[in-house]
């Protein structure tokens, strides 16, 4: 620690910026008050780099206009930006030993596990159904320190290995199993009255799913309910039910028409059962493997006799979702089998696993070794050792003694690979003297290959990356750059949307908000699903089509189907398919106009300018507000006898208290600018509860006046690097599998500066991350984890820690 100037006369008076800090900050942050545990009394411009941790926190507060707090004297945006630039320049120019942090050994999270299983074995699994929920840090589930293990995890993990291995290898004589697939619930728009997106053209209603048929043989299909109910409206006219396997018709049967109608009219429930018996235990021969199953109706002419029942809208108890008198698939589709299995020719999984086929029993063991070696290399993400093979072959030997012989031996090998810690854990081996505290070193090629591929694909390296690593070429900057380009173009890079972007923006689970039925009768799961589809397609189109990330805020295009388009007030989009649409209304451009964002930042019964404001600050600006302090009164109630006020009016009254205004004066204005959007993202001019017009004009911290979402967006981009830096920080955190430290910030800013020269294209930011020392290096752990040696004396630790 450098000696500090212990004098009241500070630094170089020529520096305006320093004078600014003196004028506006030290009223609170001095040795006497130590507000927030911080004092600047003993700092000089020269010692800024020594106190980088404190100044990085200060920079964040200044960038977010969280400081000086509302109500205190404020020098104006331009001066603050000068101070920020000065502090950043000073820190960035100072040499630092901290080029990288320490990432501990980490296990695959359940999403990565599922992706690896798909890669290795062509078996698709839903990770949420087989492994426990992962702990999130800032929304991400790939942060090494948070990936702890529990007995529940290990138990499920070992069970999953067995199950997956059995699915992957299959058996010629599997046990009969039954499976049951529920059709999607009927919703206002998805009521099976029309064509359903993803099904074959010329069909109406029904559903599709994929089923893993364990062996070649006969399977029996049962359609449990075709809406043949007490009021058999579905039987009034004749319809055709079909079952398709991989789009080939395997079953066709009529339903409805005069004969059926007569039957149920006279026969009641037994007659309905008789009709449904025609759709029970339908025998169908299927080859082993995963196949698409479609159960649907042939679309027919809508004759005048297909009366529409008008005037019925869905309501509780006796609801006619779907207005037409046609049958719908309303019960589960059950598949039981196989009956009389005849063997196991070929499946995607078997094709991937069995790289050889033993011609004779003598050749079996050698072939098994080849299979084991190939699986292990990919699964362990490194060259295979003799020891690896010997371990796996012990499992082969046990398994192959079973009735399944060679195949069963391979199944045991697959399970053994999947439970191996070499598969589950990613580690960076220590170098030299492990005791060297915080010493940094470059990752080796295999470690780099894993870091790269978990970053871009959420799974281990493919053969090409492993080959490059084995040849010692991956660390070559040109090779690395080419690989990043290749990997970004690969469909597997979609995880940058599903695992990074959606989680960064907290849009990965839209089920959290349940809009009040009484207030939003037009909302249902169909609309929620449309929000999900739109946001995912939108994020992909900007990030993976390599546009400027600014377009996340400004893009004119989006993806709509009829339902969502109507919700946004657009009537020129027809049909259930999503397609790219150029928007006319600038209020809908970019993230701030998207239903997913507006819903996620609301409560079920009202909008929340606080949640929306905090979301903008945290996600888009990277400057999260402080959490609410305990023991504060939050009286937003309407006093008895008063008319209800808008939520804005209530919040504004609350901000008359200075202690509330300190934070809410920063948070709320961003939310006010979005008040024209309802909970479910419709545009409104009037607050219905308060019967008052919406006022979306506000003054942002720092003094910028904005009115509504368009001006808010412009204000957010007035400092073009702010949003990019917010994204870059999160991307780097996601790539490194650790939370960022103050010493990472110079590298973050360097990536942003470099990306600016490439119009902030997403690929430029990704390339910057991959080239950074933080990404390519590892620091050995410090003696006492959690203790920061860079702890500055100007921050009193005891009072600064309570920030959770």
């Amino acid at each position: 620690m450098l000696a500090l100037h212990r004098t009241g006369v500070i630094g170089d008076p020529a520096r305006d910026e320093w004078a600014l800090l003196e004028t506006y900050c030290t009223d609170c942050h001095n040795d006497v008050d130590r507000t927030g545990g911080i004092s600047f009394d003993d700092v000089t411009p020269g010692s800024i780099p020594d106190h980088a941790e404190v100044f990085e926190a200060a920079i964040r507060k200044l960038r977010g206009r969280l400081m000086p707090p509302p109500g205190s004297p404020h020098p104006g945006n331009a001066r603050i930006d000068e101070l920020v630039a000065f502090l950043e320049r000073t820190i960035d120019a100072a040499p630092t030993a901290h080029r990288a942090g320490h990432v501990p050994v980490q296990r695959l999270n359940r999403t990565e596990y599922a992706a690896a299983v798909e890669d290795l074995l062509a078996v698709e699994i839903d990770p949420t159904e087989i492994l426990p929920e992962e702990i999130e840090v800032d929304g991400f589930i790939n942060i090494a320190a948070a990936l702890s293990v529990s007995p529940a995890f290990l138990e499920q993990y070992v069970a999953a290995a067995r199950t997956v291995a059995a699915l992957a290898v299959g058996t010629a004589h599997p046990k009969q199993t039954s499976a049951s697939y529920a059709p999607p619930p009927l919703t206002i728009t998805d009521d099976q009255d029309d064509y359903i997106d993803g099904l074959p053209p010329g069909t109406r209603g029904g559903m599709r799913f994929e089923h893993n048929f364990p062996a070649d043989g006969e399977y029996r299909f049962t359609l449990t309910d075709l809406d043949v109910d007490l009021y058999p409206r579905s039987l009034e006219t004749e319809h055709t039910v079909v079952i398709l396997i991989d789009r080939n018709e395997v079953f066709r049967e009529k339903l409805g028409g005069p004969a059926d109608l007569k039957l149920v009219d006279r026969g009641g429930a037994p007659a309905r059962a008789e009709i449904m018996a025609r759709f029970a235990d339908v025998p169908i021969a299927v080859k082993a493997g995963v196949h698409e199953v479609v159960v649907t109706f042939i679309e027919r002419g809508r004759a005048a006799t297909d009366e529409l029942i008008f005037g019925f809208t869905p309501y509780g108890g006796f609801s006619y979702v779907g207005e037409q008198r046609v049958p719908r698939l309303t019960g589960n589709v059950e598949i039981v089998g196989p009956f009389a299995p005849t063997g196991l020719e070929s499946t995607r999984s078997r094709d991937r696993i069995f790289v050889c086929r033993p011609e004779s029993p003598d050749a079996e063991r050698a072939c098994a070794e080849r299979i084991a070696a190939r699986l292990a290399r990919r699964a362990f993400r490194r060259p295979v050792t003799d020891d690896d093979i010997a371990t796996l072959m012990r499992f082969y030997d046990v398994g192959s003694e079973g009735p399944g012989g060679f195949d069963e031996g391979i199944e045991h090998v697959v399970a053994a690979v999947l439970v191996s810690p070499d598969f589950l854990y990613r580690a960076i081996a220590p170098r030299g003297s492990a005791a060297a505290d915080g010493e940094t070193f470059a990752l080796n090629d295999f470690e780099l290959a894993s870091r790269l591929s978990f970053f871009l694909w959420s799974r281990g390296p493919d053969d090409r990356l492993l080959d490059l690593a084995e040849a010692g070429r991956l660390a070559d900057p040109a090779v690395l750059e080419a690989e990043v380009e290749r990997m970004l173009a690969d469909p597997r890079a979609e995880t940058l949307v599903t695992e990074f972007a959606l989680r960064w923006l907290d849009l990965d689970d839209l089920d959290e908000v349940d809009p009040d039925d009484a207030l939003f009768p037009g909302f249902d799961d169909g609309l929620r699903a449309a929000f999900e589809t739109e946001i995912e397609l939108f994020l992909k189109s900007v990030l993976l089509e390599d546009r400027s990330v600014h377009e996340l805020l400004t893009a004119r295009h989006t993806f709509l189907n009829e339902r969502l388009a109507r919700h946004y007030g657009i009537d020129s989009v027809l049909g259930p398919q999503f397609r790219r649409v150029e928007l006319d209304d600038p209020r809908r451009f970019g993230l701030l106009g998207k239903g997913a964002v507006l819903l996620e930042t609301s409560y079920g019964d009202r909008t929340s300018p606080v949640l929306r404001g905090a979301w903008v600050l945290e996600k888009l600006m990277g400057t999260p507000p402080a959490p609410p302090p305990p023991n504060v009164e939050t009286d937003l109630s309407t006093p008895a006898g008063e008319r209800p006020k808008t939520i804005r009016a209530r919040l504004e009254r609350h901000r008359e208290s200075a202690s509330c205004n300190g934070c809410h004066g920063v948070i709320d204005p961003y939310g006010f600018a979005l008040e024209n959007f309802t909970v479910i993202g419709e545009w409104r001019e009037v607050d219905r509860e308060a019967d008052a017009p919406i006022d979306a004009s506000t003054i942002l911290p720092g003094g910028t006046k904005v009115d509504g979402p368009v001006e808010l967006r412009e204000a957010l981009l007035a400092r073009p690097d702010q949003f990019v830096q917010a994204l870059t920080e999160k991307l780097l955190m996601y790539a490194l599998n650790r939370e960022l430290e103050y010493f990472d910030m110079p590298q973050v800013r360097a990536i942003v500066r470099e990306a600016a020269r490439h119009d902030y294209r997403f690929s430029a930011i990704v390339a910057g991350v991959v080239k950074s020392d933080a990404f390519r290096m590892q620091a050995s752990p410090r003696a006492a984890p959690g203790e920061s040696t860079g702890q500055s004396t100007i921050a009193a630790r005891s009072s600064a820690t309570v920030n959770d």
Partner: protein
Amino acid sequence: MAYLTRKHLSRRTVLRGAGVAIGLPLLDAMIPAATALAQTAAAPRLRVGFFYIPHGAIMWNTSHGPEMDRWTPSGAGESFRLSPILEPLEPFKHLVVSFSNLENKANQNSVHSLVPATWLSGVRPDTRASGAKMAQTIDQMIAERIGQETPLPSLEVASETTIQAAACSAGSGGCYYSATLSFRNATSPLPMEFNPRKVFIRLFGEGDTPEERDAIARRTQSLLDLVADRTRALQRTLGPGDRAILSEYLDTVREIERRVERAEQRDLTGIELPEAPIGELDDFDEQVKLMFDLIALSFQANLTRVASYIMVAEGTKRTYNHIGVPDAFHPLSHHANDLGRLEKLVRIQRYHVERFADFLAKLAAIPDGDGTLLDNVLFMYGSNMSNSDRHNNYPLPNILVGGACGRLRGGQHVELPEHTPLTNLLLTVLNKSGFELTSFSDSTGEIAGV
């Protein structure tokens, strides 16, 4: 029949069916059938449960004062009176003990982020550590003591995901302390499972016949051997910090090995299990009932003796339309002393107690030893927050319920000195569960007279 009639559902079925509310027969049907499992034991076996509700309760500390207290009961014995929120417990009030003036210092000033996990630890987490760092929670201490001869030492469940943005802290700490009630040791938070299907499989395992179960156990054992061997080999290549992380992994391997052995002794012949639940239910009310049923069943069949249940997640946005409260719970809990909001919160808090009371009624109908299961349980029900509008933690609403094998003197409200540490109650629960401790965390002594 010598084998289970449970049908197998393929993985993909589950995928498709997840979240589809279907009218399950719940597990009522199987509870009589499973009675055979609860072989009469010489000495009654204590079961311990922790039932957590977020966002406190409406007590005397709103701006309306004691008039508005809807939680605190009064009196003892004949004159013991339950409060509006606790009133559903009326049939069991002779088994209820409530406490005034409890305070937990471990989560002070943390808003939501430290509240659930510190309920049963009484220890303030180190939020500057990388990764989770707190202390073992008492449910896990008890599981170590009384849960070792059952297939599962303990069961941790929730009604919904416990990863809630409103309760996780941005930056250090993440969701470590908001997502769970249970820490297995200082650095191992345990996941709270909210998928009833996965809970079911944890309880009953896989395999339809004893032969299949044996085969699965053998394979699991040999896979665990591999895990242990290779983990040790991997450890040798790593630095000290990483070696410690893998040591924890090895601990869980040993734990599962013991479990596999115990599971082999589990005799499920003659039991007709219903089909496994298909997944998380859309209908919250049904989901809560199902989780309680699974806990009841696991106690009855002696599959576990310790359960921890987050009935609703900290910071949830869940609405309660089924009881006429369309507001999201967390924002509503910022009641701002508004009488309408307070009334709605009371309704929600009472609803939780109703579900809990249903569960008690079910246990009261299950024979166990010489009496019923309810005679042999010790439950702690409550919250680790007081006034949700202010996120404070004094006084905490907590009660003990159950016959506790004769170790709990029910039917009373205990007036404690002001600012009595919650850890005094935790210490009391520990000692009633077989410990003989004189102190726990910042406790000042066991609670007398209960």
